Each structure stands twice: as structure tokens, then as C-alpha cells.
């Protein structure tokens, strides 16, 4: 729904605050340094970025599988009891599985509430922190990443950067309308600092790194 008449009325109502804030900011000149440019020479790179990525991801509760072909991923998944028992699986990586939920038929994201698994496609990995970048445009529904009980991400192990500076350079222009770094399953430590996996989002994260 694009701004309708009532939105415009709202915009007018807040214009005076906009002007007041801007006036205040513009009427007092404050000196500041130039915008710094990060010097790549200062940044640490890893001898074995893949190994570092895998160890970081394990540390934050993710499970990493290096695989040569899709059939290996299928075998690993089927050996996981909660996958074998899953009733509703949505897959965005048909080479691995077709899943049994036809996402293209779904209009309302609420109807994904009972989703057990999503198999998603990752674009690249970040060695320093075990994060994987997912482009929102690969997701017919954004909620597919957050609502299933379990999540698997498939990503090529040749697609890896050392740190976040390279990661943002690699993304380049941010995707319209959503993009996300995922690092490990959903977690919380809000009850006496005890780490519990599976707060609201996925309870576990499987990462398949293809050749």
C-alpha cells in the first residue's frame, strides 16, 4: 500500500518537527574529521580461511559439512532424525532436495508456521566470524529463514572472504529489500547467562559447503 491521503496528512503534521531538528543541526556548526578510509594493510587475513570459518561456526553452535556433491548432503540430512521425521520441508536448493512444500503456491507467510525445515542458498562465507550472507531475493518469503524449526544453508566453499570489510565490498549494493548475515542457530542467554539454542528461530543450523 503506497502512501495514501492519510499518510500525507501525517507527513504534513510532522514537517514542523523535521524543520526544527534540521534547523538545530544546521545552525550549529561542528568540526569533525574527514570520513576515514579503512586501510586493508591493517586487517588480518587467515592462512586457511575455510578452516577458520568452520571453527568459528562450530563455536557459535552451527554444524559444518564439507561435501563434494549433492548426494552427500542428502545422505547426511537423512541420517538426522529430526530431518527424517520432518513433515514439511521447503527447499530453495533443488539439487539437494525438492522438499514437499511448494513455496510458489504460498501467498500468506503465516501458512509457513508449521514448517519443519528450510534448505536455503548462501552466497558466501565470512572467515572471521562464521557468518553466511543470504540475499533476500533468493527467498520467496523472508520468514522461511526464521520460522522453520531447523535450517540448512548450502554455500560454495570457494566463496569465502576473510573479514567483514571484504564482505560488504563483496555485497556491493545492498539487495532490495532484504539481506542477512546468519551465524549459527537462534540462541539466547537471557536466563542467568545459560546459553540455550533455539530461542525463536531455528534450533540448529546445518551448513553444507560444496566444492
Amino acid at each position: 500500500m503506497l502512501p495514501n491521503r492519510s499518510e500525507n496528512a501525517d507527513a504534513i503534521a510532522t514537517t514542523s518537527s523535521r524543520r526544527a531538528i534540521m534547523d538545530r543541526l544546521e545552525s550549529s556548526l561542528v568540526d569533525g574529521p574527514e570520513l576515514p578510509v579503512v586501510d586493508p594493510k591493517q586487517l588480518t587475513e587467515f592462512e586457511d580461511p575455510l578452516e577458520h570459518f568452520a571453527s568459528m561456526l562450530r563455536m557459535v553452535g552451527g554444524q559444518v559439512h564439507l561435501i563434494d556433491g549433492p548426494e552427500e548432503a542428502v545422505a547426511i540430512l537423512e541420517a538426522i532424525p529430526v530431518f527424517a521425521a520432518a513433515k514439511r520441508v521447503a527447499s530453495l536448493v533443488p539439487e539437494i532436495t525438492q522438499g514437499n512444500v511448494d513455496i510458489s503456491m504460498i501467498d500468506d507467510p503465516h501458512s509457513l508456521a508449521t514448517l519443519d525445515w528450510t534448505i536455503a542458498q548462501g552466497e558466501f562465507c565470512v572467515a572471521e566470524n562464521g557468518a553466511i550472507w543470504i540475499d533476500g531475493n533468493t527467498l520467496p518469503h523472508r520468514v522461511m529463514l526464521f520460522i522453520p524449526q531447523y535450517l540448512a544453508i548450502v554455500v560454495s566453499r570457494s566463496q569465502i572472504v576473510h573479514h567483514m570489510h571484504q564482505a560488504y565490498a563483496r555485497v556491493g549494493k545492498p539487495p532490495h529489500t532484504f539481506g542477512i548475515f546468519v551465524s549459527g542457530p537462534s540462541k539466547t542467554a537471557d536466563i542467568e547467562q545459560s546459553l540455550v539454542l533455539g530461542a525463536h528461530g531455528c534450533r540448529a543450523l546445518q551448513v553444507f559447503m560444496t566444492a
Partner: protein
Amino acid sequence: MKLPIVDHPTAAHDYIADDERSQWHDKALWFIRSKRDKQAHDVPEWEYLRTVASQIKTHTIANLGRYLAEFEKNATALGAIVHWAADGDEHNAIVLGILRRHETHRIVKSKSMLTEECGLNHYLENNGIDVVDTDLGERIVQLREETPSHIVLPAIHIKKEEVGETFHEHLGTDKGASDPQYLTEAARGHLRGKFLSGEVGITGVNFAIAETGGFVVCTNEGNADLGVSLPPVHIACMGIEKLVPRFEDLAVFTRLLARSATGQPITSYTSHFHGPRDQNSELHIVLVDNGRSRLRESKAFRDALHCIRCGACMNTCPVYRRSGGHSYQATVPGPIGSILSPIRDAKNYKSLPFACSLCGSCTDVCPVKIPLHHQLLAWRKELVGKRLVSFGKRLSMKGASVLFCYPILFATAGKIGRTGLKWAPRWMTHNRFNKWTIARELPEPPAESFRAWYHRNRKG
């Protein structure tokens, strides 16, 4: 609304009186501080990143008007609707306006210190809206009708047995159950229902990007994402200081934030929002000033606007760790809160800059290099200048300054002190007029002064 004057020593009294709890709290926070240290040490360029972060923030705040205009233009071009609020009341009214237009009664909210600062929850509840905080810690606090005691760990002051009681009462968990895994699972089930019935999702903003018109939200639980990917309306509320100029600047801040906050290399979810989800959705961004543009005009305290709300200064602060977040009686507690709160209201929060030992630990850990303890000291000077410090304290400071100006007076006073202390009965020092001795003993008076010692040993 007339607020009561916050007297930190009085407010902290009960917390410290429970020695066991105070120590438990202290340990929990020190644990997080140690995790942070490990993460920081694992990044060789840590100090470099802090310097760059500080420069980016200083630059952005100096040019804030320009960057806000750029952000507004780009966000609007992406289809978002940008609102401007001069203060908390206006922010609340804008949010309620959007909810009314959608005839909404149920909203799901993820953590936002800004909405906390504006008192949004109460305002909406008073207007008949059912507000559900979805961050587990915030939900616990909300069910207990308390306020967060920490900006990153809202329920850090609550024990698992107490969470168990609260959940037994509200969510029907087993009586006496206190296993975090079990309790979290119960909350997961309870909140799933809320997510599915939420009609509007509200989030805070960790960073907004002028160059792209988008913003970033960081969570571990995934609650912000779940909350805004189901309903068609997303309202993001942010203070105007949350901007960074370029997309690439996010690299610096995402590297610093989670490491400083909880000692994790990055949060589980770092979500980048650029425009509404689809043609049937709306994205509203509420830009809130609420004193920030005024703070920008203060040379002494301007740097406090650089804060990325990581909480590291609280975790490390010896006063915060022992006295608990509620003793500050402010939305943001700890060192940064003790700077920000008196800016809002010097009279009510005048005791906070004194709840500090000037140890400087906060300044050492702050990822954006805010000179926290220098600012706290600067506040003390301001408060003394404004005569907001008690007469007794001002008088004794005056006295000390006279004493230090006249060597003869100083020597005599020293002599009186040494002899007096030796013979004075205990009631003369330990009485209800001397707060300093409530939990302290006076030192043994030395046999001679340094001056006498020097004369004997060096001058002979």
C-alpha cells in the same frame, strides 16, 4: 510528570544489602566482560577498528543534518515512509497513528532502547494496544512488570528460580521449574503464538545507512526478523545518532558490536532492511531527536552520541556490577547512562556522575572510544558549578581547597588528624552523620608525616 530525584546511594542500598545477590550479579557481568576481552584480543586490529569507528562517528555527528537528509531521500526512494519526532511524545503519537490507521490491536516488538526511552509500551497500553516484547529477557521483565536493568541483557538481575515463578504464573510452566532450557522452550511456544497473531512489527535500529537508505538490526534470538516477516507493517524506531554514512562502514561496527556486547564474533542474525517487503507491505522509519540535537551542541558531552549501546561499559563497571542496573533509575544505566541521564535532567540525576570511582575501565572497553570517565568528571565540575551538589559536599571541597593552598594550615591539620584519630572515640567518626564510614574503617594513623620523615632522612 514530576520525577523523583534519583539518589544513587539510596537506590543501590537494598541491592548491596543482599550481599549474595550483589556478588552473583557481579560475577555474571564479569563473565561477559572476560568473554569480551577474549574476542577483542583475537582481533589484532582491534585498536585500529576503535579508532576508525570513533572517527566515523565524530564525522557523522558533525555532518548529521546532511546525512539525515540523504538517508531520508534514499529511504523514501526505496518506498519507506520516514517520520520525524522532536521528542518521545511525538514519537509515541506517530507510532499510535500508524497503528490506528491499520486498526491494529496487537503488536510484536523486538528490543529497542529508544522505545524504552520514549515510554512507548505504557503509552500504547494506555491506548488499548496489546504490546508483546519478544526478546526473551524483555518478555521476562515485561511479565514481571519491571524495567530492563541492562541495555543488552534486560533480565540480568533476575535469577532463574524467579523466572521460573514468573513463567509458572503467566505461561503455566511446572511449579518450581528453573531449568533455562525448559523455560526458554516454554517462552518459545508462548511467543510463537504472539508472532503469528501480531499485526504490526516494531523494531529498533542498530545502524542506519545514509548512502543506501536502509538499516541494520542485530539479534541473537531472531525475534526481530520473525516479528517483521509475518505482518505487512514494519515500524523501525531510531535515534537520529544511529546513522553511518556508507554501506562499508557497517563492517567496522558489526565487527565491534557483538564482540563488545556479549563476546560473540557477530550476532546470530544481522539483518539489512532496504524498503518495504513487497507491494502489500509498509515500512515506516521514525527518526527521533529527543534531546540529541541539543546534546550535539555541547562540546563537553557531544561524544556521548557515538554510543552504539553495546553495554560493555556496564559489564566492566565496578559500581554497576555491584549495585545493579535499577539503582540508576534510568533507561540507560551504567557509565554511559550516568552521562546521558543528567543531560536530560541535571537536577534529578545529579547523583549519577558521582556513582563512579573514576577507575577508567569503561573508557578502555568502549568500542567507539567515548572518554567516559573524563565525561563523568566533567559532569561533576558542572554540577558543582550549578550548585547541584549538596551543601555539605561543597563546603568540605571548599575547605580542602583552602587547606591545600596554605602549607602551614595543611601541616597543622595533618598533625591534628594524626593525634586526633589515635584518641578519638569511635562514635565521633562512626555516626549517622558520616555516610563515608557506613561500610568502611578509617586507616591507622601513621606515626609521623611524610614531611617529618623527609626532614629526618633526606635533609640531615
